[in-house]
């Protein structure tokens, strides 16, 4: 079992933007579609761990993170179980972001169950 890494500040942007592409640059939607989702698929297919390093950016808005991670369930159709099993978050600068992301995933999964 290998490891795939994503460092958002290097591979995407040092200043993450809003939720959708139409709302502004470096959006959560763009990050999910161009970086997160392809790497997640690759990790899932090869039973690898996907390590996402959140440090080094200017800061994350709530909707950027919600769209990136909650969108994996809502828009891409991945299961909460696979995400929890595969993704590992590193956030030394803002440790509470791990809990926030878990909360976005839980809400998205619950919304899917209701729908």
């Amino acid at each position, binding site marked *: 079992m290998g490891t795939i890494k994503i460092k958002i500040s290097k591979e995407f942007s040092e200043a993450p933007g*809003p*939720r959708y592409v139409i*709302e502004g640059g*470096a959006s959560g939607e763009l990050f999910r579609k161009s970086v997160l989702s392809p790497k997640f698929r690759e990790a899932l297919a090869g039973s690898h761990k996907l390590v996402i390093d959140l440090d080094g950016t200017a*800061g994350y808005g709530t909707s*950027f993170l919600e769209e990136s991670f909650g969108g994996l369930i809502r828009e891409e159709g991945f299961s909460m179980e696979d995400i929890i099993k595969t993704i590992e978050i590193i956030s030394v600068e803002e440790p*509470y972001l791990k809990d926030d992301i878990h909360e976005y995933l839980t809400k998205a999964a619950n919304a899917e169950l209701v729908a």
Partner: protein
Amino acid sequence: MLNWLHKHKFHLLFIAFSLCIGFCIGKFTSVPYFEVEKKWNILTLLQVFCTLFIGIYVAGKIQKNKTEKDLLIKRIDSILEFVDECYTSVSDGEIEYSEAASRMKRASQMVTNIQQAISTLNLPNHSNEFVEILGLVREIRDLTTNTPNNLQKQVKGSNLPIEVQDGIVTLANERVNVVSMKYDSLKHKLLMLQLSLNQS
């Protein structure tokens, strides 16, 4: 040894001066009903030196703690200034999305740095105050950067408290009021932290 003497020269001068005064008073004055003992018991002498040592040690410790607390309180002052700046930037209801996010990251890091500094010193940790302060910073971040997704937009129609266009967040008046209240609470909590640090 020389270093120690240099570092404590004022204390030593003060002790020497006090001994001189004591000697002079003993030599040149006579207080009725009191008599100056010409011989000193070694235990009394030890007692005097122990008292002096404890006095100097306690005074030094209190001074050191006061200096450290003053530094932390000044640092919280700079957080309060930054929080004021953040509030001004959002008070007219418009702010750049990435700026709103980065300001909140900076605020939470400034608060966390104070918390870490306190934990390295022997001061009470004030953990409840820090949980509340960081909670408020996160609430403000959510209020200023949590824009609705497409489903929420459909449900709420045009009555949205927050919108983003070209990377600029626009807040409705009601949302600005809520954000203002959160900033007031944050400033109050920071002030209370300063006060309790000062008392500890």
